[in-house]
C-alpha cells in the first residue's frame, strides 16, 4: 500500500473501501518521515502521539459525516502557531515556545478533520530564500540533497516533494510559498491578500504576509484552500468576501482565455531554461484554446527595492515584541534593563533578521522616512497599477516563478543582494496583493522549474483552472525525486 504518490481523492477512496484506516495512514506518514527526513530535514517538530490519538478518534466518525480532507495528514510551517506543539519560526528567540492557542487556519484544519503531524522548517521569521537562515537546521532539496529547497517555506515544499505528507501550509511574503514550490517541483498557491486569516501567523511584514497551501496536485491545492479561506473576526485585514468552491472552478476548459506575458519577466537575469519552459507551457495552453500576448509591467524592476524597504520596515516594528520578558529566549548576561533587551535580541536573532530590523529601523527613522519608506509605498502604488491595467485586458499573467532552478547550499548565503534577486519574479505579486500559483513546468539539470500563473484579486478560481489544464496536459507533476528511491512508500 503506497501513499506517497496518492491524491486526496485516492486516499479517501482507500479509506472508504477500508483498504486502510486513518490511523494506518498517519502511521505510514510517520514511517515515511522516519525513512527520508534524516536526508531532507524538513520537519522541526513531530507530534506522533497527538496525531495518532486524533486519528483514532477520527476513525470512529461515520463515513457520511466526512469531508474530502477528513483524516488526511498535513504539516504546518513553523511560523503558524499550534497549541501544544512547539512553534519557533525557526528562531532561537522562540526556542521552546509552546503556544496556548491555535492559529485560525489550524482551527480550520481541525474542523476539516485533518491530522497535523508536525511543524516544518523555514528561514528564520520567514526571511530568506534558501532555508539557510533557520537557527535549527538546513532543509535539503529532495531532488538534489546538495541544493537548497528554496525559502522561506522550504520545509513545507520539501516535505511534499519527498512524499512525507500530501499537504502542507506555508506563508508567502515575497515568494515564500511559490519559490520553494518551484524549486521542489510541487504546487504552491499564494492566495489574494486577505483571503486567508493571518491570526496566529507570526508576523513578518503584515501588509504582505499571506498563508497558502502546498500540495502535489492542483486539485488538492484547491481543496486545501477551500478549507482555510474565509473572513475571520480575529483578523481585521481578512476580507469579508464570499469563498467559492475552488475545486468547482477546475473545469478543464480554458477556451478563450486571454494570457498576458510580461516582457520584464524574460529579462537578462532570467535563465534560458526557465524562459524556454514558459514558452513551451504557453504552447500547451494555446492548444487548449487560450491566446497570449506580450505585455509590459513597466515598474517590475523597482519591485525588489520597494519590497525590501516595506517588508523590513514592517518587520522592524513587528519584531520589537521579542524582548525576552514573557516568552522565548532570555539572555543570562544583563546588568541593567537595556542590556537585558539588547543581549536577548542579539543572541536570539540571526544575521538576516538583524539586517532587516536595522534596514527597517533606518528606513522608518526621522529624516529618512520620506526618502525610503514613503517613497517605497508610492512606488508600490505604481506596481499595483501595472497589474490593475494588465488585468483590464487579460485573465491571467504568466511567467517563470524563479530565474533559475535551486542553487547549491552555501552558494549565495554570504551575499544578501544576490540572494534577494531570487525573488524578483514573485515579489511584485505580494506588493500588488493579487493571487499567484507556481506549478511544475520543466527541469534543468534534473532540478524542477516553476510556472507562475498570476490572477485578478480574489480570482483564485481562474488561476486554478489554468493550472489544472496545464497539469493534466503534462506529466511534470508525476516525476519523483531521488529520495523516493528505496524509501518506504
Amino acid at each position, binding site marked *: 500500500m503506497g501513499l506517497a504518490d496518492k491524491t486526496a481523492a485516492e486516499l479517501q477512496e482507500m479509506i472508504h473501501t477500508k483498504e486502510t484506516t486513518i490511523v494506518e495512514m498517519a502511521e505510514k506518514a510517520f514511517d515515511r518521515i522516519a525513512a527520508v527526513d534524516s536526508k531532507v530535514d524538513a520537519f522541526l517538530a513531530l507530534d506522533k502521539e497527538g496525531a495518532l490519538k486524533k486519528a483514532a478518534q477520527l476513525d470512529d466518525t461515520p463515513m457520511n459525516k466526512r469531508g474530502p480532507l477528513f483524516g488526511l495528514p498535513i504539516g504546518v510551517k513553523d511560523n503558524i502557531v499550534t497549541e501544544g506543539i512547539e512553534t519557533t519560526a525557526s528562531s532561537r528567540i522562540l526556542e521552546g515556545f509552546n503556544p496556548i492557542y491555535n492559529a485560525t487556519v489550524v482551527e480550520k484544519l481541525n474542523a476539516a478533520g485533518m491530522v497535523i503531524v508536525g511543524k516544518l522548517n523555514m528561514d528564520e521569521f520567514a526571511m530568506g530564500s534558501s532555508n539557510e537562515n533557520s537557527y535549527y537546521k538546513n532543509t535539503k532539496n529532495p531532488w538534489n540533497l546538495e541544493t537548497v529547497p528554496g525559502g522561506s517555506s522550504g520545509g513545507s515544499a520539501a516535505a511534499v516533494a519527498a512524499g512525507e505528507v500530501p499537504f502542507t501550509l506555508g506563508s508567502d511574503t515575497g515568494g515564500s510559498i511559490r519559490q520553494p514550490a518551484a524549486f521542489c517541483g510541487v504546487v504552491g498557491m499564494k492566495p489574494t491578500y486577505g483571503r486567508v486569516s493571518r491570526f496566529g501567523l507570526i508576523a513578518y511584514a503584515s501588509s504582505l504576509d499571506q498563508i497558502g497551501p502546498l500540495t502535489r496536485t492542483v486539485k488538492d491545492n484547491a481543496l486545501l484552500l477551500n478549507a482555510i479561506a474565509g473572513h475571520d473576526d480575529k483578523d481585521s485585514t481578512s476580507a469579508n468576501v464570499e469563498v467559492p468552491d475552488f475545486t468547482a472552478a477546475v473545469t478543464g476548459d480554458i477556451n478563450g482565455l486571454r494570457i498576458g506575458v510580461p516582457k520584464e519577466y524574460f529579462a537578462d537575469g532570467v535563465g534560458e531554461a526557465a524562459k524556454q519552459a514558459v514558452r513551451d507551457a504557453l504552447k500547451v495552453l494555446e492548444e487548449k484554446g487560450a491566446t497570449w500576448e506580450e505585455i509590459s509591467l513597466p515598474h517590475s524592476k523597482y519591485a525588489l527595492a520597494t519590497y525590501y524597504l516595506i517588508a523590513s520596515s514592517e518587520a522592524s516594528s513587528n519584531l520589537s515584541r521579542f524582548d525576552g520578558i514573557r516568552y522565548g529566549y532570555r539572555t543570562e548576561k544583563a546588568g541593567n534593563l537595556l542590556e*537585558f533587551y539588547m543581549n536577548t535580541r542579539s543572541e536570539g536573532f540571526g544575521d538576516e533578521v538583524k539586517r532587516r530590523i536595522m534596514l527597517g529601523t533606518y528606513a522608518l527613522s526621522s529624516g529618512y522616512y520620506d526618502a525610503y519608506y514613503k517613497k517605497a509605498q508610492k512606488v508600490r*502604488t505604481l506596481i499595483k497599477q501595472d497589474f490593475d491595467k494588465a488585468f483590464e485586458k487579460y485573465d491571467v499573467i504568466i511567467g517563470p516563478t524563479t530565474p533559475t532552478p535551486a542553487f547549491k547550499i552555501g552558494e549565495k548565503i554570504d551575499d544578501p543582494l544576490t540572494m534577494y534577486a531570487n525573488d524578483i519574479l514573485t515579489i511584485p505579486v505580494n506588493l500588488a496583493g493579487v493571487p499567484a500559483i507556481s506549478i511544475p513546468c520543466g527541469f534543468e539539470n534534473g532540478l524542477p522549474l516553476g510556472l507562475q500563473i498570476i490572477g485578478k484579486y480574489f480570482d483564485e478560481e481562474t488561476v486554478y483552472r489554468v493550472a489544472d489544464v496545464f497539469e493534466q496536459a503534462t506529466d511534470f507533476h508525476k516525476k519523483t525525486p531521488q529520495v523516493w528511491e528505496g524509501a518506504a512508500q
Partner: protein
Amino acid sequence: MAKMTKEEVIEVAHLARLAITDEEATHFADQLEAITNAMELLSELDTENVEPTTHVLPMVNVLREDKAEAGLDRELVLKNVKEHEAGQIKVPTILD
C-alpha cells in the same frame, strides 16, 4: 537618498535594541551600504503626485460590540514565562 554608514549602523542597532560588536558593525555596514545603494534605484521615479499604498485592499475600521469577553486563563498565560511567582513575571534585577 543616503547610504548607511558604520556610524549609522551603530546608531540604528541601538535604536532597535540590538547589541553589536565593532567588527559586526563594520560587516553589517558593508552589506547595508550595498543594499541601500540598490534601493537608490527608486529615486529615479517621479512620485510627486502618487498616493502611497499602505494596504492593497480598501480597509475599514472594524469595531466589535463594547462588551467584556473572558480573557486568557492566567495559568495558561504564564506557561511560557521563564520565571514567575504569585502570578507575576519575574525578571532579573535591572536597577543599579
